[in-house]
């Protein structure tokens, strides 16, 4: 999806200007074996307050995409970033280091997978929170501490007055992840990027953290990018989902239609590979044969074609771009309603015969 999809999605009927516009983003990492195309031409937009899910398997480029959006990956030795990321009107790739620091503290928050490595083991919980408050908001010590206590209460940590003076190792994984979320929220960012925020946690704790993110999003009105390999995690928690494969978005739609009626063979295969609780035991799962392509030498044409059961000759020639699902001609002005179902496939899954 390159320019086309941007045009499609960027002209919403709604007046709200997008909070985030990613256009033709490519992140190329130099490795000993050659150039690795981690993110290979991704365009997307995010409205204020919207929740976007990005799903994909390991190596699909979803985390690199999140970090590039955040400005953690910029062109430099070992890495080339092309395309653009505009956040709130500012071009993130062109911001100086100082501008980026301001942005990270105040406007974009990020939550990583492993809460233990995101926290400094020799600093108290309180210090983690007050540092950013004092830096970006100019609060004094007492004010910052008061706000830190508020934040701990906000993310549902019982007994904040005691917890604030503890060290990370004194808390459980779920509590630590709450602290990391509290840090990301300290300055009420407009966008929170959560990269596999629950992968290291147990199911019951996972549910708590996802509920918490939901509640905070509606209370604070922030936008959310939820990156996960788990389709279930993303399904109930986002407005829209983008499925990534081999560095590209292969399908995007509002969450319900994506899971109910997947168009791209990869999305379909991914959904079929998950065992389901309501199915009988010992049911044979529909595994996807083969493995994802080597992104140092990606195949020509559709990246999924070598593993795709619907692949034909034309799939091997040119990489398909994202386009609207129904193939309906655009109206004369080329305007398409926002949030349409788009796929990058020459032979999408045909479900017309089904009820």
């Amino acid at each position, binding site marked *: 999806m390159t320019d086309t999809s941007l045009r499609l999605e960027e002209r919403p009927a709604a007046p709200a200007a997008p909070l985030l516009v990613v256009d033709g983003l490519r992140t190329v990492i130099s490795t000993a074996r050659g150039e690795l195309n981690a993110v290979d031409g991704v365009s997307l937009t995010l409205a204020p307050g919207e929740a976007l899910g990005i799903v994909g*398997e*390991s190596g699909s480029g979803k985390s690199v995409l999140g970090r590039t959006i955040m400005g953690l990956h910029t062109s430099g030795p070992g890495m080339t970033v092309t395309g653009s990321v505009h956040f709130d009107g500012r071009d993130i790739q062109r911001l100086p280091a100082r501008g980026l620091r301001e942005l990270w503290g105040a406007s974009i928050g990020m939550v990583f997978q492993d809460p233990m490595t995101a926290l400094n083991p020799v600093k108290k919980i309180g210090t983690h929170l007050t540092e950013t408050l004092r830096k970006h908001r100019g609060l004094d010590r007492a004010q910052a501490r008061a706000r830190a206590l508020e934040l701990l209460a906000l993310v*549902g940590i019982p007994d904040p007055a005691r917890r604030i003076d503890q060290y990370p190792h004194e808390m*459980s994984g*779920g*509590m630590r992840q709450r602290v990391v979320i509290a840090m990301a929220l300290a300055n009420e960012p407009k966008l929170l990027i959560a990269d596999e925020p629950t992968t290291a946690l*147990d*199911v*019951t704790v*996972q*549910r*708590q953290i*996802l509920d918490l993110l939901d509640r905070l999003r509606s209370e604070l009105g922030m936008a959310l990018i939820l990156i996960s*390999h*788990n*389709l*279930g*995690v993303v*399904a*109930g*928690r986002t407005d829209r989902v983008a499925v990534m494969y081999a560095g590209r978005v292969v399908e995007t739609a509002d*969450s*319900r239609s994506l*899971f*109910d009626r997947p168009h791209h063979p990869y999305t379909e*295969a*991914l*959904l079929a*590979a*998950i*065992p*389901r*609780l*309501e*199915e*009988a*035991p*010992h*049911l*044979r*799962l*529909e*595994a*996807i*044969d083969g*493995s994802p392509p080597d992104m140092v030498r990606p195949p020509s044409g559709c990246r999924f074609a070598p593993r795709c059961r619907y692949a034909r000759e034309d799939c091997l020639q040119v990489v398909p771009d994202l386009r609207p699902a129904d193939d309906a001609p655009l109206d004369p002005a080329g305007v398409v309603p926002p949030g349409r179902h788009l796929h990058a496939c020459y032979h999408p899954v045909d479900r017309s015969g089904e009820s």
Partner: protein
Amino acid sequence: MAGSGSIHLRPPEERVLSVDDLVVEFPAKGGHTVHAVSGISFDLVDGETLGILGESGCGKSSAGRAVMQLPPPTSGEVRLGGDALTSSSGNQLRKRRARMQMIFQDPVSSLNPRRKVKDLVAEGPRIWGRKVDDAQIREVLSAVGLDPDVVWDRRPHELSGGQCQRVCIARALMLDPQVLICDEPVSSLDVSVQAQILNLLEETKQRYRLSMVFIAHDLAVVKNISDRIMVMYLGKVCEIIPSGSLALQARHPYTQLLLDSVPEAHLPGATTDAEGVAEQTRSAELPSPLDPPSGCRFRTRCPLATELCAAQEPQLQEAGPGHYLACHHADLAAILGTQETLAS
């Protein structure tokens, strides 16, 4: 939960593996003791797959390792076929235990990085001084879905995670085991590869006539592969249930909490709660295994808990065919379950 009891065990002559009153304790700092597994019993009949389900810290991995005598349990008895593993040691233990093989969570780190696939697979029998011919290695590699010509001379770092897990399964099969103990064998794998490995384990089980203990935290995965499921919490058994009944007939409040926490891929927006009950249960913290609660260990998070639960530990009781439950309020639990089913 949890409870103790042995009402769910089958007649001894049918059992391939039987585990009786298994206790695993580890010493901790300051003279404390970690109560990892506190008196669980289970058995395995020929060709059966038992799933052990629970969250981190529930003792499911400790239980699996104690069965393998890695290390031997603090107390309790493990019998494989007719042989008591717990009372054997040294050579006798090694010999008897060889009929039981284990598959671990991280396939890459459970293989020696310096050895080639052909040697990794042949390692087990060679340790026993048996001659292994190439044809045998080829056969088992093909059985686990690897092309012998491709992987023959490769080392673990040249393989993907899924391929390494296949090598681990091939290694286990070379010793012609009766029982396979799989400890989270698919949790480090991607969804598409996870499906491949689950299918492979199922096929292998049929082909080599294995019985299996499958330890995992993912409800749908455990349900897919198991005949019976044992739910554990803080070192105790909560519920034992035929896998087909898990979604609709589970009655223990903890099993219901687990079911309620599963994010559903196909039902966007359907994750809303039945009642605030589940919310209360979820938000409580897991008690420390250093000092587990008295009576029922789940009572500190249980919406149905009463004084009885603190005073007395519930024993496993029959709740239906092949379905056993350790809860003082099993009747209430049944009603709660019905309500949640209706509400959802």
